[in-house]
């Protein structure tokens, strides 16, 4: 049972709280050894509950979780040998940095000399060598984050879990730590399950992203997959930005289709859910994939230009009352692009996806 592709397996795992709240419904997921998988979703989507069940702090109401072929059902958290980084680090304030990091080794009765070597090694890994005798309260947020990371890695767990570990850091530090965690993952080869509600973080760091919604897995795939080929209109909205238009499928040719939007436009798209001619759909297009020109496509009026430094966001109003956002690189903005200008918007069929017709702004 050393199937590397099935290192962690969620098999029809369900978590129901008293009062009938379904936190997780029928989760099926396989995580390969050495993989970096991110659980992404809004709060209450079940991602943290799933992580806590894997860590052993929540018990599944039904289904099985296996780690390296062994069922975890009756293994208490302290015997699972899983490293975990908590949301607010959960460092022990009464211990020094070195004592914090040595904690998992001292509870395992590791010999003193080995502990010393391991602590030094992992302090070096997270670049905190000079801080060993400080108390957590004397460290900055980023340094505390590194200590928590070091403490979760020092006992060489084959699996490390992280529950929104960067949530408390400011943006620059967060981006820096993202890269650092990614490098540490690559260097150590551990399997990493990472929970976040930040889609940018998920795309930057992961091998695969599992998107949760209302306790269900909405889509699992590589960052490229979930961004370029969202399987549902929820994923298209949640990961990155997208323009979404309701419409009816008029024509299907293999994977391609033609959709008549409710505002009257007829547009090409890739058919991304099982539906035939006449079915309702939502067409989703990324703002950076819409091309503006004077001649080609549907007419629209520039309502607003918003300058973002590296790019410009263009808010367009179509005759039908529909609104769409377009992203244009700052240097690439044509001269005629200014407020009130009438122009035409179009996209290639392969850049639009005809998705399930759940209404855009009411996530069920």
């Amino acid at each position, binding site marked *: 049972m050393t199937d590397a592709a099935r290192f962690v397996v969620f098999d029809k795992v369900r978590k129901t709280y008293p009062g009938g709240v379904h936190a997780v419904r029928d989760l099926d997921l396989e995580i390969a050894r050495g993989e970096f998988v991110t659980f992404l979703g809004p709060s209450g989507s079940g991602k943290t509950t799933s992580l806590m069940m894997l*860590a052993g702090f929540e018990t599944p109401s039904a289904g099985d979780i296996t780690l390296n072929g062994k069922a975890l059902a009756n293994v208490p958290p302290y015997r699972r040998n899983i490293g975990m980084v908590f949301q607010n680090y959960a460092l022990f304030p009464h211990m020094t940095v070195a004592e914090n990091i040595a904690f998992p080794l001292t509870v395992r009765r590791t010999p003193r000399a080995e502990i010393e070597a391991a602590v030094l090694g992992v302090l070096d890994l997270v670049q905190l060598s000079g801080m060993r005798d400080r108390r957590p309260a004397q460290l900055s947020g980023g340094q505390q984050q590194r200590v928590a990371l070091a403490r979760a890695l020092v006992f060489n767990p084959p699996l490390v879990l992280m529950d929104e570990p960067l949530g408390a850091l400011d943006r620059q530090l967060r981006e820096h730590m993202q890269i650092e965690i990614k490098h540490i993952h690559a260097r150590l080869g551990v399997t990493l399950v990472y929970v976040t509600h930040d889609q940018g973080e998920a795309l930057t760091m992961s091998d695969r992203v599992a998107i949760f919604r209302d306790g269900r897995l909405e889509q699992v795939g590589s960052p490229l997959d979930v961004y370029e080929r969202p399987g549902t209109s929820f994923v298209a909205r949640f990961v990155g930005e997208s323009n979404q238009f309701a419409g009816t499928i008029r024509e299907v040719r293999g994977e391609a289709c033609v959709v008549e939007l409710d505002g009257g436009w007829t547009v090409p798209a890739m058919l991304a859910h099982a539906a035939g001619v006449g079915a309702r759909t939502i067409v989703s297009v990324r703002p950076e994939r819409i091309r503006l020109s004077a001649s080609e496509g549907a007419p629209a009026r520039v309502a607003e230009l918003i300058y973002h430094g590296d790019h410009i966001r263009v808010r367009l109003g179509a005759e039908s009352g529909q609104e769409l956002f377009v992203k244009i690189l700052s240097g690439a903005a044509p001269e005629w692009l200014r407020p009130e200008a009438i122009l035409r918007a179009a996209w290639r069929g392969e850049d639009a996806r005809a998705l399930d017709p759940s209404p855009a702004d009411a996530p069920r």
Partner: protein
Amino acid sequence: MRRTLPQLSNWLLVLPLFLFSAGIFVAPIALMLLRSVQDPELAAAFPRTAAELARWDGQDLPRPEAMSTFITELRGVRGTDRISFAANRLNADISGFRSMLLRTARMLPQADGGDAAETLRRIDARWGERSTWTAMRRASGPVTDYFLLAALDLQRDDDGAVAAVPAERAVFVGVFLRTLWVSILVTGFCLLLGYPLAYLLASLPARYANPLLVLVLIPFWTSVLVRTTAWIVLLQRDGLVNGLLRRIGLIEQPLTLIYNRTGVLIAMVHVLLPLMILPLYSVMKGIGRAPMLAAMSLGARPFEAFLRVYLPQSRAGIGAGCLLVFISALGYYVTPELIGGGGDQMISYFIAFYTNRTTNWGLAGALSLILLLATGLLYIAYARLSRATGPAR
């Protein structure tokens, strides 16, 4: 002006409270404590005698002039309050002094005649003893260490040296030690009972924790007297506890649960328990669940995680709770008075006794001062200890 104005208004805001606590709290306590070193009664009744005695070297007997001065002054205060107060004060030192002094005053001949010392000795032979006069000299004020020494079961002998009082009169050191011991026991039991409860309260979700917290607070808001009286009902010989134990067959003879140490401990632990639970709860609430979870995810069994991670972090709450309970217990009065036997009375019982019944305010003040000093010292020791070993938060 711009800077002094808010300061002035700040002072005005706290002025009423300041005056109130100064007048109602600080001043009476200070006056009461001053009493422990003041000795005004004898000097008030016999000012010139007191001055004479201050000059006396303490050997043999005072000069005959001093004796005749005393007789003159004794005649002058006969039947007044002043002689009565002075007699009370002297009686506290040597029992029987009060009746001797009052009888002497009554039996003094109207006119001076003959030797003053002889006149006194004829009325009562004790006027011929040196110890009578040294006692008067000790009481002639204006300041004295008599009460403070007495509060520690010490006295000055006729030569002015500090010596232990006779064993049958030595009570206060024993009472202080008893007070300390009972307070330690109560604090220990409160911690033992309060810690798990506070832990439960802190780990439950609010909708369960809040009603439970109210159950902790309701007794806290109830008068100590009511709760103590309730314990009398429960613990007495034919009370509910004994009745229940006998009905389920655990005991045959009723247990003596009241008017002894057991009853005092039960009732005091119950009364003071909220003072332990509340600071523990607030500290534990701040710790949260995460450290325990983190410790377990790192491989610590629940018990080890508790010992190495949770307990040290809750130490501030343990310290605060123990200090609150212990210091409250040191001054406890009502509960031991109502539920304890003669051998369970704590120091505040004696303070109340000397304040209300024998009006020996000097001794009451001295006992209070020593209790206050002991409490202060313990607090300082605690503060030092918690600063020396506390986490650098």
